[in-house]
């Protein structure tokens, strides 16, 4: 159907443009790949338009964005979209980003709909540029090359309360759950909630489950050392 095209474009080159578009549609309907070579050769054969005129028509169709680039997306071209580029950069620069951060910095409600926001994220995931993990009820998007545990660690280290608790547990070999609250200036319920989340995410593990003694899991300790991650204590 050519009904969506501006009438003035058809008028400007009259019947010839319409005929070339019909040829292009015919090629698409045959499930063949549309390109300049096939449009030109078939139009020349079927329509007998002189070469110069045919090239002018093809140029006009490009300039009016009726003919557009049809190459499949690659990892590189997916990032040509400005929103996807910004999301990708934000996730990499911040070692992970939540919906909240992406909404705040890149794609707020004025930029577009929720559907569009999720569409861009899905495309980045589809082309293996980012990945998604779940930390509690929150989704976190990480660079594809980042280890999941490292991503979780980065997520927790961005929050002061989590950092304080991690610092405390790091400074001791192990510590009882009840003692944590006594050594940090955080409400007890919050402390327990944080500890629960970090246990679920394997940041912490039980040394002695009967006494509720906790320690940092060995993998996380290694990650902290190997990545030279700064905790409040180190700062």
């Amino acid at each position, binding site marked *: 159907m050519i009904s969506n095209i501006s009438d003035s474009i058809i008028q400007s080159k009259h019947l010839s443009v319409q005929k070339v578009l019909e040829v292009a549609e015919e090629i698409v309907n045959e499930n063949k790949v549309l390109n300049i070579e096939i449009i030109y050769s078939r139009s020349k054969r079927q329509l007998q338009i002189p070469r110069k005129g045919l090239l002018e028509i093809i140029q006009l169709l490009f300039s009016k964005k009726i*003919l*557009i680039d*049809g190459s499949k997306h690659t990892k590189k071209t997916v990032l040509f979209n400005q929103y996807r580029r910004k999301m990708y950069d934000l996730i990499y620069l911040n070692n992970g980003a939540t919906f*909240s951060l992406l909404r705040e910095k890149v794609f707020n*409600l004025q930029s577009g*709909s929720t*559907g569009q926001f999720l*569409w861009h994220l899905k495309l980045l995931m589809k082309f293996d540029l980012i990945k998604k993990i779940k930390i509690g009820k929150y989704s976190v998007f990480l660079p594809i090359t980042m280890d999941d545990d490292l991503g979780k660690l980065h997520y927790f280290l961005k929050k002061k309360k989590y950092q304080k608790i991690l610092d405390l547990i790091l400074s001791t070999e192990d510590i009882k759950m009840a003692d944590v609250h006594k050594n940090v200036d955080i409400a007890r319920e919050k402390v327990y909630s944080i500890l629960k989340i970090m246990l679920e995410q394997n940041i912490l593990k039980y040394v002695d489950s009967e006494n509720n003694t906790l320690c940092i899991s060995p993998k996380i300790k290694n990650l902290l050392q190997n990545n030279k991650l700064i905790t409040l204590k180190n700062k």
Partner: protein
Amino acid sequence: MYILQFIEFLIKLIGSISFFLIATFMVIKPKVKNIPSLFYIKISLFIMAALKFFDSLATLNYEICAITVGILSFPAVFFAVIGINYTIKDTSKTYSLYLVFAMGILLLYLAFQPGGVTTIEANGFKASKITGVYRILFLFITAMYAIYMFYWGLKTRLNVPILIKKEGNIFFIGVLLCSIITISFQFMIQIHYIFLSLTDITVFLGLGITIYAIYREPKLLYILPFRVNRLLVKNNEGYPLYDHDWAESNLNEITFTGFLNTIQTLSEEVINIGSLVDIHLDEGIVILNKAKYITIGLVATKSSKLLRTAVSHFSKDFEDKFERILKKGCVDMSEYQSAYELILKYFSNFPYRFVKDKKHPLLLSYKKLSLPQFIEEKYKNLFRQETEYEDIHSDLAKSPISLSEEFLEFYNENVDELEELDTKFNILNNKNKENKNI
């Protein structure tokens, strides 16, 4: 006169007449008459015609004609290099020109020194030829010209847009013949005298083919100096009236329209009606022209007097052509589509560069990817705005086919979390507003 002497004389004379005819053709034919970069090439061709004429007389053993051949080679090469410089860089001044000038002065000096010309007997007849250091310098200057010509031809051929590739190939063949092949034959004269006649034939043939390619497609001369990307016309209220693209631009749309809007808001004290402003950016240059009813922005890789003149004339003609509807404040873009005639008038020589390869896959933008109906309906519900929907479809057409369903699953998994976040954000926003009011 011997037969071989006569044949050589005739070949050179025909060459001379041919150069003269090619140069005259370029002067009288409207298609190539007014192209600035060809002006100097035309002068060079007229001088080459004279050079060949004197060369033909030198075959008849006139020494003064042989001296003149050497002398004329300097301005012939000098003007040819200026012309080529304009097509490559849109300027005449390059190091190669200074070198040619220096060589030329030396050549002129040597022309009047004794021993520069001598009578040589070959193939049974005597002819006057330039010899010694004079000849070496003459060969050097012509070799420089040949290499520079070949460089121009090769660079043009490598950068030629796909739609004019055929003319680009013809152009390159012509340049190859009149440059590298001719100069190779020049050096092979030592092996056999026949190569002397062959150089005349190849240089004439090569130049003829080159000029034919340029006549057939003048865009060949505008491939190298700069690339024109986009032209946008807006009225004084900021409504777009006409839009034309030659290539994809790196310049962000928001930045480009921002500059246009800024120019529009500037008062007449700051910028006069009809004046041009160049804004240099990393991504290229924006040439802006503020007219009485409209503002025009042109995005290119480089500024040039030619482009500025074209924008200025286009602007004036646009206002003249659409004065009635501009005064009425018409903002319907379809009313201005016939401005394409002005694009053909002032910008017809700038090539289009949308794709690099004739087999590069394309899409018809209005033809939607056909999805199963139930998926299509869900997408229509999610993306109610037409532009949003079209963007998504464009992405879908370029992505793996499974993405259409995978996205719906992803959406269902995450939409609740997002909506909760948006609700919290709205509540926070409202609280902040209340606090401010208080």
